[in-house]
């Protein structure tokens, strides 16, 4: 009798979890489905159908030809790669200084950095917008990238990781006459690679999805990132109500991150969980 109750309870739990999984996955299914319906068949369906009667890939061709989608993708790629690379150099040097080097004022600066983690982006974005406008850097990659590099939280995360590597390794390197830079490059970075990869992945996701800053500093399509591209497509992209083409564009834009997630899901979830508990 008790066993049966347990089975019923389990079945109920699986049912609920499956239901939620369907709710999570359904928008993705719907965007894929709508993207392979032809324009005419989509608009003929007063009651939407859950399958495509005559699937077509022509919307994907439309997505690339009638809006500069490849331009948006390329821009986002350039923006993501450079921002992440510059950030990585900046935070590695800073984390090393905080974790290993001794200098006057270190504790004070570190405390200040920690305090800055609590400052919301909305508070500083106004002046950054004015700064970039005054420097004539609107609609340039420099203007897009510079304010996006700063990431106090990742300095903190990496510093904690660097500090976990034992003193003896550093002392041994010093005895051998290894320079600090060499120790950082040859010892510390290889040991802390997992954390650095996590930081890179999280930053790539952040860059790929960034919307507010690019919207403020770009108003010409040749410097739009994908998020702004979607907004542009939505507001004046494919002419009136060409939803299948819109959905094709949305699929293309979502795909890179979904692939990244499928490959690295363990790492991403671990990273967000640690980032979360320490944030």
């Amino acid at each position, binding site marked *: 009798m008790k066993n049966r109750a347990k089975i019923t309870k389990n079945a109920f739990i699986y049912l*609920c979890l499956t239901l939620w999984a369907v709710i999570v996955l359904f928008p993705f299914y719907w965007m894929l489905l709508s993207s392979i319906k032809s324009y005419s068949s989509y608009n003929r369906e007063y009651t939407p159908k859950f399958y495509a009667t005559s699937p077509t890939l022509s919307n994907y061709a439309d997505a690339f030809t009638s809006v500069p989608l490849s331009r948006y993708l390329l821009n986002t790629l350039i923006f993501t790669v450079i921002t992440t690379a510059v950030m990585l150099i900046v935070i590695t040097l800073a984390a090393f200084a905080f974790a290993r080097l001794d200098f006057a004022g*270190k504790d004070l600066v570190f405390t200040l950095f920690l305090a800055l983690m609590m400052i919301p982006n909305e508070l500083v974005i106004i002046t950054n917008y004015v700064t970039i406008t005054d420097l004539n850097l609107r609609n340039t990659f420099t203007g897009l990238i510079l304010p996006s590099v700063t990431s106090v939280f990742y300095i903190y995360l990496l510093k904690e990781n660097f500090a976990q590597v034992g003193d003896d390794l550093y002392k041994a390197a010093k005895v051998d006459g290894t320079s600090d830079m060499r120790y950082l490059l040859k010892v510390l970075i290889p040991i802390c690679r997992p954390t650095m990869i996590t930081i890179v992945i999280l930053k790539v996701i952040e860059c790929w999805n960034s919307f507010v800053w690019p919207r403020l500093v770009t108003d010409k399509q040749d410097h739009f990132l994908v998020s702004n591209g*979607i907004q542009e497509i939505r507001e004046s992209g494919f002419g009136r109500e060409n939803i299948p083409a819109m959905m094709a564009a949305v699929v293309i834009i979502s795909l890179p991150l979904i692939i990244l997630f499928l490959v690295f899901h363990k790492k991403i979830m671990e990273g967000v969980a640690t980032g979360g508990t320490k944030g």
Partner: protein
Amino acid sequence: MHNKNNLKGWLYLLPALVFVGVFMVYPLIDVMVYSVEEGYNFASQSYNGVGLYNYSYVLHDPYFLQAIKNTFILVMITVPLSTTIALLISLALNSISKLKDLFQTIFFLPYVTNTLAVGLVFMILFKKTAYSDGLINMFVNLFGGRSIDFITGSYSAKMFVMCLYTIWVVLPFKILILTSALASVPKVYYSAAEVDGTGSFRTFYKITLPMISPMIFYLVITGFIGAFKAYSDEVALFGTDLNSAGMNTIVGYIYDMLYGNSGGYPSFASAAAIILFAIVLTITVINLMVSRKVAVK
């Protein structure tokens, strides 16, 4: 020797200091200065006085009051609801072993996707046009309801979609955090409770909940902060002109003051940003005080 090391430390720190200085510390001071400069002109970068007029303008602006109302409704509905749902899902996840990883991975998917892209799909699912009432209305009709225009219709219908989409977007993070919190409760406690014949609800209330309550408070606090800063999800659903849709948020108001057709007023934007910061700070302090009180109990 000691001096040289000093220099080296600062040298390693220099790039970070430059970025943080120029793009975080200076703006922080500047935003306060902007907020008290009256009649600031963006083109000539001049102003004609110092005072609190910007704050008073913003606080009397009907668009700002609408944005405050929208944001508060969004916060009050989505934070408790999403935390509760996340807790239920995490409890369910934690009680199974088969397929747990698969479910966990699926549930986390929305975290990595572009919220503007998926928001567009939500918009299409809910939108009622001349050609079609949309998929959601198909279900509404199925249960005997009349088609509702969720995207351009009544305020409550729009608010419903906005809250629903926000919950869909914020749940992955909460589920992840709560699932790992639940997994870290030592199994011994549960075994002990089972030996004592403690009921499952009592076990949850007396063991699980106190053990994970720090994480719940953490999620409530970050949830409040996140929801107060809502903006891009609203753009995804209702377009960039949120004021005319009547669905603007505080952050949306700040950006509208800065940029676009209604923009060019960094001093109004700054005043609004500082008001937002004050609200978030107050709520966070209250949250911390409540959590401390509960923890002491």
